[in-house]
């Protein structure tokens, strides 16, 4: 059975080969034409970005100002968080990826400019589609899209960004110390987040 099958297949391809000799030659001509373009382009100056081997902190990546990358939670001119935990971004989000827990500011522990602040603010980048609806919804301009794009991860849980990862840097004139406290400058855990 098996040998019979192979014999049949061979016979068919021989028949095809003879009947298609002309189109085979046509194919060679087309490849030659294509390769000529390739060879010509090989000697032209490079057009693509040399990412990740390029110079500078972006390692050669270039993009438009309007590029929508990882969100940044902004601070006001006093260094307080702009976010007042109104939940409007979470409501606007079509991917349902923003999780917030609100808490009340006290005079002893003031985090944002208004009565309340986001005790927990998570964005799940497994789901975020970078539509900027949250940015549109925010009444206090607290959330914006930054230019961060290197968020690929091997573990999906690493794609849930917490407030500490999203917060804008504290400006130097408000006490962030670039020499001694890199965390503050990088926007990191300046404020302990209970429960996280």
């Amino acid at each position, binding site marked *: 059975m098996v040998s019979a099958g192979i014999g049949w297949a061979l016979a068919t391809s021989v028949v095809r080969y003879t009947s298609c000799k002309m189109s085979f030659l046509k194919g060679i001509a087309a490849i030659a034409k294509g390769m000529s373009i390739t060879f010509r382009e090989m000697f032209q100056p490079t057009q693509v970005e040399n990412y990740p081997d390029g110079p500078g902190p972006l390692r050669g990546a270039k993009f438009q100002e309007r590029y929508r990358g990882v969100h940044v939670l902004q601070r006001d001119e006093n260094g307080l968080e702009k976010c*007042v935990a*109104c939940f409007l971004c979470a*409501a606007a989000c079509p991917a349902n990826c923003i999780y917030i*827990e*609100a808490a009340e500011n006290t005079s002893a522990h003031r985090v944002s400019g208004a*009565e309340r602040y986001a005790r927990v603010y998570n964005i799940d980048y497994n789901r975020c589609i970078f539509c900027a609806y949250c940015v549109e919804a925010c*009444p*206090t301009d607290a959330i914006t899209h930054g230019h961060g794009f290197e968020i690929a991860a091997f573990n999906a849980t690493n794609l849930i960004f917490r407030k500490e990862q999203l917060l804008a840097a504290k400006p130097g004139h408000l006490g962030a110390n670039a020499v001694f406290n890199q965390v503050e400058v990088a926007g990191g855990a300046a404020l302990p987040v209970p*429960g*996280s």
Partner: protein
Amino acid sequence: MADVNLTIDGKKVTAPAGTLLIEAAKSAGIEVPSFCYYPNLSLQGACRMCLVKIEKMPKLQTACTTVISEGMMVTTDSDEVRQARKGMIELLLGNHPLDCPVCDAGGECELQDMTFSYGAAESRFIDVKNHRDEQQWSPVVYFDRPRCILCYRCVRVCGEGMDVWALGVQHRGVSSTIVPNQEDHLECEECGMCIDICPVGALTSGAYRYKTRPWEMKHVGTTCTHCADGCKTTLGVRRCSTGTELVRGDNRDKSGINGDFLCIKGRYGFDFAHHEDRLHQPLIRRNGRLTPCTWEEAFQLTGERLRQIRDREGGDAIAVIGSTRTTNEENYLLQKFARTVLGTNHIDHHRTADYPALVAALAGHPKLTASMRELFEAPAMLLIGNDPTRQHPLLAWQIRNNVRLHRARLYLVNAQPIKLRRQASSFFAIPAGREAEVAAFLAGQDSAVAAIASETSPEAWIRWRDQLRREPKLVVMFGSEIRGDAVASLIKFAADLPEAKLICLGDYANSRGAADMGLYPDLLPGYHPVTEVGEFHKDWGGVPEKPGLSLRQMAEHAQAGKLKALYVVGANPVEELGLDPFVFSQSFVVVEDLFLTETAAIADVVLPAANAYEKSGTFTNTCGDLQLVKKAGEVTGTKSDFEIIVRIADAMGVAVRKLVPFGRGSRADMGQSRGAQSGEADRHSVWLEARGLEPKMSPFDPMAILDEIQRLVPGYDVSRLHLLAGMDQHTSLSGSGPGTKHDPSAIMPARDDLFSSGTLGRYCRTLNAVLENGHKLAAEEEVAAE
């Protein structure tokens, strides 16, 4: 009343004479925006949002104060009207802060909605807004003055609805301000009705403050777990890092028997669920100490020990104490488990009212019980004993508002000058403990008058009784002061009246359910004596026929060393009934509870139970209204009492299907379920459940037991469809067994006050905050007086 014809926006409308224009428009499906108008409160005419054009009237008129008249031609939607509304909103927003992002009302604020629907997007006011700091008036009430739109709803609901009159208006015109009764703070019932009714975020709740947003929560309408009135409360649930969290209780869905009402316990008394003392792991006593263990270990140990004791000593050595806060299904299952598996009739609960006596006296008088809704409509009410304002807040609300809105007559007899006397058409004070004589006197025993006529003359009592006898429709309510024979006397009196109905007042959320489901040593569900062989004996295949021991007798039995095992479900007899914990030292004690209560502390096995907000089932309120209990949240490490009972039975080697008839005889129609995830009701499963057709594949499904209850317990044969749709269903006691006469001293009322709720109340942070605040205030007052 005669009907009146009028035209609204070209639509012909007919409504009874005396109807307000705004209501007539509503009935025709035409919305007239309003702020200050609120159904069932007095008219205010303050906000001018409801302006409409009425032909032949020179100016726009307020629809909320205009009574319809024949031939009226009304326009609710013309340029002139729209312009007027726009203007009103612009003025309201003149000094209104732009607080929406942080305001707790955001998302369910009437001002937001109105501004979107009718308002102007831009303001022409450029002046700086006049800011005032937010004030805290009490642990639960906060006031943000600039947000107030002066609709006076809060003032009216507190005064007219609650009869507390704690809020008032200071100054006139633009400087009018809502102020609390104590200048800078409130002394009141803390019911939160003012917060609920406030159309904006001026009055906000201390418990819910800045926690979340209305659209972030799932809203579950269930029944309150505190007093026996059975208010429908809507719990707002959010997912949180530890599972689900109950964030708020409110009265979003006003369809319950409570209408607009909720008291402090229904509104704020849910936080015990997240108390840090809550048990999250079963405990077993090892070397004299309660140590955490797995559920499997706990079930194995309990099952084995109970089986050994039953097999060696017989059912007589085992006693069971049930709860007044567990569902009907759990209570039914518990007594079925005790009777058929443990083989004992030693089962009892904390009795707070004499329901068996009521049943016994009602024999031959069908339909003599009133529902909570009927009370609101009754033209006359008689209350003997009890203080509903403190112990039955909803009942008090119904009485007050029935008097206010329907001019009902309220006859009061009480040993204390209770607050409801302000609504009473007659108040008769009696010496303490003489309520039974009042009942006897009413039943026609004239000699009893001597015992009660201390402040009022015997002639007045007789005139009073004659007046009552002439009442065409009367609802008689009585507290636990009336027990035993006194109940029979009252019913004798009521049965002779043209139409009288009764409400017997018990104390905890499901006291009535516990009684109806047979948590009595001598009564089966539906008040059938255990001594009479009947349906249950047939259905269950054998029930011990000797009546068991009551609570006190159990303690004596234990003292004598004859009680080898005690199984307590959701009760704290050591504390509430003052039983001596040491009498149980020779017994194997199993306790299911939320907290390590005084009773749990002496147990050998403690099983962490879910509370009523974390499970499904039904409750029967004190009037007999059956309502659905819906699962709102979940706390890790706990199980419902239903599941625990089934698991223990399983560990004892019982065929569980005999206990819970699950998966029996149903052709499982799994159908297609849609939309349940997105919050939409799963219609298919609602339909199946309503017909009792849902698969009931699980032995933990309370609906399987509800089937049996509806089949076997008289009066519970109500519409399953209406029940599942969230409506109350009155269960009458007619058709019940003969009931019985119990020792009246076995009834121990809870004596809960407005801010306390048995063991549960001790773990409610908000209730305690209010109590502490009250104490603090009282202490300050004393200082001031010195």
